């Protein structure tokens, strides 16, 4: 057994903070793309957010999109190159605030793409403002009295919301806050890419991820924050599966 840097990842340091979940998720995507042998026909999209520089880290074609628009960009690419593997990688602001329309409609059209949705309940890159998934009562730089005090409404549950759409093929929420959770996330991400390869349709994996910097917690405390706080609002599980198989084992 050998565990090493996936070929789908460049051998460079990342700019992510210590303990940030992005690094884990990037590596899982790299591992899965390597395992499925699809690196040379994969094109990824980079969001606006901490992961805007994803193309510096991933060893395949990537297009940098404007905020929220990756599902539309992916639609244009996949419709023109149906045999390539197109995936989006988006944070909570990208996918569930400014990009809500693109997310819902690409999902409902059933675009045969893979969406990796990184939910860390904050706007990381810009310093910790409220995200659509910031939880009720949670502090942020724009909800210093806690979300919900001034008409913000409750957090958006993307998997639950998209599960009502007929065009969606697969929805699963996972986490990366423990080795066991990471193993589950890897299975789900692999399934989402396999679905695209098999022409199954729109697959989205929501990944609860750590942001120690904005949460003002240590990396170790951030792992617990996901277990103790986030999972209560965003339970893990499969929310839609047209294949009926659940995650690949």
């Amino acid at each position, binding site marked *: 057994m050998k565990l090493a840097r996936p070929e789908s990842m460049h051998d460079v340091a990342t700019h992510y903070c210590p303990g940030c979940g992005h690094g884990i998720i990037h590596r899982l995507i790299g591992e899965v793309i390597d395992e499925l042998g699809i*690196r*040379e*026909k*994969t*094109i990824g999209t*980079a969001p606006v957010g901490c992961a*805007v520089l994803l*193309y510096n880290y*991933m*060893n*395949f*074609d*990537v*297009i*940098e*999109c*404007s905020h929220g*628009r990756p599902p*539309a*960009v*992916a*639609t*244009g*690419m996949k*419709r*023109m*190159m149906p045999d*390539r593997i197109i995936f989006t990688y988006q944070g909570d602001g990208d996918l569930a605030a400014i990009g809500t*329309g*693109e997310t*819902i*409609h690409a999902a409902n*059209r059933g675009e045969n793409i893979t969406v990796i949705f990184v939910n860390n309940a904050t706007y990381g890159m810009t310093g910790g403002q409220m995200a659509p998934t910031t939880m009720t009562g949670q502090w942020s730089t724009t909800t210093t009295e806690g979300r919900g005090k001034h008409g913000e409404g409750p957090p958006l549950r993307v998997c639950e919301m998209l599960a009502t759409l007929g065009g969606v093929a697969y929805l699963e929420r996972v986490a990366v806050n423990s080795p066991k959770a990471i193993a589950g996330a890897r299975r789900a991400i692999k399934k989402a890419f396999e679905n695209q390869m098999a022409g199954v349709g729109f697959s989205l994996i929501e990944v609860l991820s750590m942001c120690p910097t904005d949460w003002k917690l240590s990396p170790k405390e951030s792992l617990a924050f996901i277990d103790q706080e986030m999972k209560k609002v965003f339970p893990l599980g499969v929310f839609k599966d047209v294949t009926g198989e659940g995650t690949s084992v």
Partner: protein
Amino acid sequence: MAEKVLLQGNVAMSEGAVQAGCRFFAGYPITPQNEVPEYMSERMPQVGGVFVQAEAEVAAINMIFGAASTGARCMTSSSSPGVSLKQEGISYIAAGELPCVIANVQRAGPGLGGIRGAQGDYFQSVKGGGHGDYRLIVFAPASAQESYDMTMAAFDWADHYRNPAMILTDGIVGQMSEPVELKPYKPACSLPEKDWILDGCKGRAPRIVRTLYLHPVERLIDHNRHLAAKYAKIEAEMQDAEEYRCDDAEVIVAAYGATARVAKAAVNMARDEAMKVGVLRPKVVWPFPVKFFKKHARRVRKWLVVEMSSGQMIEDVKLAIECSKPVEFLGWGGGWYPTGESILEKVREVYR
């Protein structure tokens, strides 16, 4: 002579795109260009292309961004308020040096405005409606035939320069039907190999389409220098205008699109009254046909600019002649249409 059919301007524009090899169209309904997505929804599948009715103009321009990055010839269309929505996406496409065609069938504004034709988006089109230093190659058809011809050529020029191109038409040209000769496609210019497309890194290093350059500072400045050099080249090579009865004209009417056709009628009437008048009609409004204006600048006593706006192109006319002569204006935004008589009356006044 190729087949000649009666076609609406919007449809002629769409068919010109199809003949040029456009195989991806994304758009959203908005009057007065609904015929474009409607026509494309049937035509794209017929030629093995893809039509997507996007959820909004913002989504549509981003679908174009994606399709263009794969090397496909792609197009979106809208009318003024919808084109406002596309501006961020257009800035990204220009910054990423991706080719595509964007049609604006202008309607009256500002705001929700009205659905009559207008020319109130000239500034937005040629001065950069989106953020940052970029330019669009902007074609200004004045007939259904030009809608067909110019759109067909626009795909070639967009590929040639790796830059988005715009068809700046209006609700009058878009809605009226005229005979159109369906000329077969012939490249308007040389077409370099698309060695920048994102189609998977098999047998090559990965490619990136990006517009963010943070470090070092010089990198983004250099990119801007590169873009500026490209635009200087386009300015030198693509100026185009029609000179109608200009050779001895003492007053020249400058107008584009539907307005220019009415201006020609007015100029004919003025000639019947022994006035030496002509029409100078920019066919491409960016780059502005400066050399055509300079050619007549010394002889012409006065210029009259007529636009279906409250005065936008007039600024470029003044710049082109370096404010060397008086430049008068006729026009209003908001759906005002010129008539032969109204232009003639103004010509008489200017000619004195």
